[in-house]
């Protein structure tokens, strides 16, 4: 039997122009245009939205949860942490 499921698209949502697009979930759709429309119904009706991206889930290459060593800090690397100065939450690249 053929698989009649639509493929999934990952949905990225932007609240205001210039902000990062943030991953909010996924939708099933037959093609990218329908994916955008369905994503609009799913994620942009209540949230303020200026832009949506959809990406076929199969295009995402991901790490494996089983491969914990990939992120492991096996030796002490605390000397690399910038602890001696505070950084504001919002960095302004044009400030003096």
């Amino acid at each position, binding site marked *: 039997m053929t698989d009649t499921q639509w493929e999934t698209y990952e949905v990225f949502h932007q609240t205001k122009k210039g902000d990062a697009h943030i991953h909010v979930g996924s939708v*099933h759709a*037959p*093609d990218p245009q*329908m994916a955008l*429309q*369905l994503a609009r*119904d*799913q994620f942009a009706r209540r949230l303020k939205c200026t832009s949506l991206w959809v990406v076929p889930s199969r295009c995402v290459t991901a790490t494996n949860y089983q491969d914990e060593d990939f992120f492991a800090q096996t030796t002490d690397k605390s000397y690399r942490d910038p602890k001696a100065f505070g950084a504001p939450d919002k960095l302004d690249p044009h400030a003096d």
Partner: protein
Amino acid sequence: MQTNFPSQLPQDGIRTLLLAMADDELVLGHRDSEWTGYAPILEEDIAFSNIAQDEIGHSLVWFTLLTPLTGLTPDQMAFERSYEEFTCCRFVTHPKGDFAYTTVRQYLFDEAERVRLTALSGSSYGPLKEAAAKILREEAYHLMHSKGLVERLGDATEESHRRMQAAVDLAFPQALGMFEPIDGEAELQKTGVFPGNVTLEHEWLNNVVSVLRGASLKLPIQQMNGKLKPQCKPELGGRKKSHTAHLQQLVDDVQLVYRMAPGGKW
């Protein structure tokens, strides 16, 4: 009823026109809402629930414009009238059928709404003109959605084509009832309130024929003297308040809670 109503415009005709549009939206909105929890795909379930709310929202816009002309609140018009006073076309009253029928009906309706609202955004009656322009912005996305489904399902697989064609065969004669003439239409045309159903139907047909043909779906239609002519009997009666048990059942459902607690507030 309304004291500052422009004296040169036909108040009765405007009331009839607004009520027909309000009832169409209310009834189709309810039919769409019947998919909540049942649509074949979760995403479409949510999409149809959204569309249902939008259509009912549009009916509220028209009912609100009617309030100064009828002295009735939108709730009174939606919940206190008997189904025999509704002036929706019969098309929107039919049961939701399968998803193919719902998709085709929604498409045929959205295409008609676009044509009607575009015309009304040039209406000589100010409140109608403004409201039409506002609703048109939202309706454009309904049309994109339903047209997108028709274009894809029309010739996707043997089964989707068969079901969509069956839906078109059933829905098309019903859909022609959207353009059933209303009382006072000549006056509305003369005064620039509304261009008339004949004009709208013609424009609608041109759009519908090209989209359905593009989706490999056939229509009972013939070209005569450069004009497209439907070769089937339109289902009329709704605008003259001649309805079937389908609408009676629907109105019973819609009004059930309201009637349990008349005047209740929440």
